[in-house]
């Protein structure tokens, strides 16, 4: 177990290095200058700014300096477009994204898993078909259609819910729901598929013939194995909910991390871009590992440490 985790962490470092290399060179290839946003910056000021940010050094030195600063001092550099340390920006916006992501995760599991279970139990009935059709709608309707619709239909009519903004605890309900909807739909499909596979196995028939109640058979015996595909999906999906919520953040004006990433890509703010990208990458690796470990706990047959080919 320990060796497995250690190995995966080492592999994670490799992934981070690859991610860093890709973002570094893409950021360098991005058009324009980082300081052109400010009006009429004189050539001397530009020279000074370039020197201040260490942008006048040769490329290979810059390539090495950034990660070594992160490792030695935890310093992600200074955002060229905002003039603030990237660490500040991340530490301010990450809690917001985390709350939003946790809310979305709750919605996704709370809606998706029960729908999947009901569908699997009532397989090939009208209930199953209509629930799966609803799940497909959830996958096919983009967040940027659902979000605005919720704003006009729900937020405008229920007192206490705001159309947009981030202040009171209630404000996170609609964005979290919007963000969790797609994952809920995928979870419903995965749970149904996973359960169906388990329900056709012999030990389920044994459990039934022992006289256990159907509810107990499903919840106690089948669900454990039936949830495996969902667990494998949830790790990366949760990381994506935390990091990939650009759209939802824009619609509901949530001050999370996603917007910084998009803005950095547009404003050619390379330190912010690399910092946020590395942070996202780190989260994704961590969540992947967590879902692998959870899979191992749920299913003893999955030998942790043996690479699945």
């Amino acid at each position, binding site marked *: 177990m320990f060796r497995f985790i250690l190995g995966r962490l080492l592999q994670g470092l490799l*992934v981070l290095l690859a991610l860093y290399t890709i973002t570094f060179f893409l950021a360098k290839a991005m058009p*324009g200058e980082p300081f052109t946003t400010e009006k009429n910056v004189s050539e001397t000021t530009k020279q000074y700014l370039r020197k201040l940010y260490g942008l006048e050094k040769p490329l290979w030195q810059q390539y090495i300096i950034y990660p070594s600063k992160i490792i030695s001092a935890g310093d992600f550099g200074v955002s060229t477009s905002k003039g603030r340390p990237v660490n500040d920006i991340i530490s301010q916006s990450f809690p917001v994204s985390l709350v939003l992501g946790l809310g979305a995760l709750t919605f996704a599991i709370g809606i998706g898993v029960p729908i999947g279970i009901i569908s699997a139990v009532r397989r090939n009935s009208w209930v199953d078909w209509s629930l799966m059709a609803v799940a497909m709608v959830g996958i096919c309707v983009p967040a940027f259609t659902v979000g605005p619709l919720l704003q006009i239909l729900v937020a405008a009519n229920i007192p206490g819910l705001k159309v947009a903004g981030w202040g009171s605890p209630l404000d996170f309900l609609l964005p979290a729901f919007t963000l969790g909807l797609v994952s809920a739909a995928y979870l419903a499909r995965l749970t149904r598929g996973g359960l169906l596979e388990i329900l056709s196995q012999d030990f389920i028939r044994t459990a039934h013939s022992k006289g256990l109640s159907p509810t107990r058979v499903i919840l106690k015996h089948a669900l454990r194995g039936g949830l495996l595909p969902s667990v494998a999906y949830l790790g990366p999906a949760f990381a994506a909910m935390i990091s990939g919520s650009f759209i939802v953040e824009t619609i509901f004006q949530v001050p999370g991390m996603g917007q910084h990433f998009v803005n950095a890509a547009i404003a050619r703010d390379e330190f912010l871009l690399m910092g946020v*990208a590395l942070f996202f990458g780190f989260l994704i690796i961590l969540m992947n590992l967590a879902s692998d470990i959870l899979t191992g706990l749920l299913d003893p047959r999955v030998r942790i440490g043996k690479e699945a080919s």
Partner: protein
Amino acid sequence: MSAKNAQAGSSLWRDAWLRMGRNKAAMASLAVFTLMVFLCFVLAWFCKDPNAVTLTNKFAPPSGDHWMGTDALGRDLFSRILYGGQISILVGLVATAVSVCIGVSYGALSGFAGGRIDATMMRVVDTLLSIPFLVVVIVLQAVLSDWSSDTSSWIVTHWKWDKTFTDRLTNIVPLFFALGLFGWLTLARIVRAQVMSLKEREFVEAARALGYNRFRILVRHIIPNTLGPTVVYATLTVPGFIMYEATLSYLGLGVEAPNSSWGILIKEGANFMETHPGLLLIPGIFFSLTLFSLNFLGDGLRDALDVKASKD
């Protein structure tokens, strides 16, 4: 020899076709998607100019002249949806084609080579799979879209191409690559797994005994047999790419004005949703209907071809 092969191959696909014919949802989806392609790529040419601005006729309700009304600049919504659909569907299909080409060749080579080459190639895929896809696509798109405007002006001055057409083309070509370059990873794994098991089968041994070289065996005998899972996976990839395109366009990193895609139309519509919800709803319905049909079609194909892989 070849005639016999063709016979055997066609019967597998005929079986699958018959099986799918009994799947009503899949057949209905096929019909819907065909209709959508017909609307966007044939009917669109007989429609009004999607960029003709008529400021005196803003937000017109549906009428005989404008079937679905007009938008904030008095442009005909129906023809904007059809022209937008061209781009959305084209991006989905071409990006899928790019990723299928890369994925199948990479996966087939990896599985066929085996040993250390295979291990290294798959480690590369694993690494790339852990990289946040949308993050890199956003950065890549920011880089490529600037090159594309340079390329466009270069082509217009040197090759004397039509400017509108060239702008349109160079605007969407980067999207094909930004999406396709990262979309092939899962497919490569699926194809590799197939090739690994196929290369141990008797017919490959027979081909080897006949003295065919390795390349011919791989291309003529093994890869065609991986077509089933590839088709299923590719069908399910198209709606994913259409969604990515819409997301990028919504963020302002994809298709740019005066071009339109469904993502752009939905974004524009969202600005006026309180007063004119149709501008958001109608493009949203077209978009979702297309994705809906493609997903059901993929599911139907998977059942018909009896493919177990590709969870997604």
